[in-house]
């Protein structure tokens, strides 16, 4: 057996493991050590042919006020400082091109900016669900998304990285509610 093809194969096989493992490592770090923040959502429901059914999670806040002299280009990576209100929900209070010295922050991208406003792209946009639960999830989402309390995205944040951990309504996890509904 020739050595070179085997060596290339070994490197390729390792890379095929390394790519998903690095993702797992990063996201596990955020999930275990990250701070929990809550964001109010608005969302429709699409389907991803490769990864199955998901709820498109779109935090309600889509624009942030910025100083007039600040210019952000489309796709620019920025750091959003998060402020938690009396209701326990977090919002983005400011944007900066460098990480803030203190407080919780998320790294995200600019959709576009104009004048004193910047529109942001959140770093998460989907919550995958079981195919069997998906029809009920659609109904649940439609019923509650415009309610007073709204659907809350529970996100873990660590060093600017954010991982969507769960969805909840009135403090109750989304999957529990769904399982009760399909019984």
């Amino acid at each position, binding site marked *: 057996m020739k050595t070179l093809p085997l060596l290339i194969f070994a490197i390729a096989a390792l890379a095929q493991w390394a790519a*998903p493992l690095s993702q*797992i490592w990063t996201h596990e770090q955020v999930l275990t050590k990250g701070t929990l923040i809550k964001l109010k959502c608005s969302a429709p429901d699409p389907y991803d042919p490769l*990864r199955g059914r998901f709820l498109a999670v779109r935090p309600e806040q889509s624009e942030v006020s910025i100083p007039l002299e600040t210019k952000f280009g489309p796709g620019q990576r920025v750091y959003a400082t998060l402020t938690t209100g009396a209701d326990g929900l977090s919002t983005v209070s400011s944007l900066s091109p460098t990480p803030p010295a203190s407080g919780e922050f998320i790294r995200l991208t600019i959709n576009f900016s104009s004048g004193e406003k910047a529109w942001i792209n959140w770093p998460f946009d989907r919550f*995958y669900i079981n195919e069997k639960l998906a029809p009920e999830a659609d109904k649940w989402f439609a019923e509650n998304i415009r309610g007073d309390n709204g659907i809350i995205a529970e996100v873990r944040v660590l060093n600017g990285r954010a991982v969507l951990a769960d969805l909840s309504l009135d403090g109750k996890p989304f999957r529990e509610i769904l399982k009760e509904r399909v019984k």
Partner: protein
Amino acid sequence: MNTSHQRWLLEQLPQWERDGLLTADAARTLRERHAVDDSQPGLGQIIMGALGALLIGTGLIAVIGYNWDDFSRPVRLLFAFLPLLATQLFSFRVLQRGAAAAWVRETAALLQALATGACIALVSQIYNLGGEWPDFLFWWMLLCLPLAWVLRSHAVAIFYLVGIAIWSLNQAEHGKPWHDSPLMYPLLLLGLLPYWPGWKGKVPLSITVRWVMTISAILGLCSAAVFMSAYREDYYSYRDDTFVWLWTLTAAVFALFPLNQDGMDEPTRCKPQVVLGSLWLLGYGLAATFRDVNDDIIRGASHALKLPWCWGLLAVLVVFMLLASARRRWALLAIASVALLPLIALPFVHGKGEYSDSLLTWLATLHLSAVGITLIVLDFTGRRSAPRLGAALLSVLILARMADSEFSLLAKGITFIIVGSAFLAFNLLMSRLHRRPTPAIA
């Protein structure tokens, strides 16, 4: 001669020997010269292997897509990695055995490629990762590329070529950084360098792989041209007049892509880059003979000359033209020169604002006439050429000029009949003169 022709020849040899048509020595020489390399996959083997692997891979992705909510995260991650591990072990076994049948290599490589994609997709699902599918496709293709090499898999090479073409088409959208745009396509194509035309391999590449390679390269490089022609005033837009000329320069580069002697000796149908490049160039040249599009062509060239991508293409084209001259590929040089027409016209119309005069029309008409005549004369002087293409070009030119002339319908009709008859007569003459297969355009 492709594998099926070789097999047919080898089957006939015993009968020909018995009939006394060939001596035993001659038959042996033919057997040695046209020996069939069974380690190379046939089309049927690739299709069967690929189909099986695709069915299993797609099934795997669908099972994963179900989203096994009842299992914990580690168990679901195990689902992602087990198929990958199994396919890697299968591929390793195939690699270890060395002389495995072609269909086994193809199946192993494609299965591993699909398991890699399924694994990344499942990890994204488990962690609710956002992101766009082109990013996923990009990394998936990069992780698959080595399999085309180590397992000598044509199926994975085709999969890779299709994947990077789709990725490039999607990335032509304005405002992306260069490293996330179709400008990366040439680098991605470099990953399959020995599949490029002109590369001296042990065995010739199958026609299927060549066509896929050419079409992928066309889509990738044309996407890059579109991406480079984007401009921003109040909002982003694309200059179609600009990228059409960039496409034409790309077509000229394709047509003149350097080949070794074996490649030049092959029939034209085995060189898709020549077929498609030449067709585009002649179409572009014919369009340039119409006055209505002159302004667009000149404006496009004028804008394109401000782009580094255009200068890069021109530099490559000049090098390829020099190499083609050295190889005496005169017919293709004549056709490729059509791409430079706007450059010749530009100094004469520059600064006039609207380029409404008919300089380019006449220049293109004269140039294409010269190309047509060259293609015919080259053949009569015993060089490689395509005389019928030359005659067809001259006929189409006459018809185009008649179409936009003020002549009466009667005059136009008579001209059409004369041109049609002359074309048929020329075709007949060429058939009698040659009595042999049409020579290839080198």
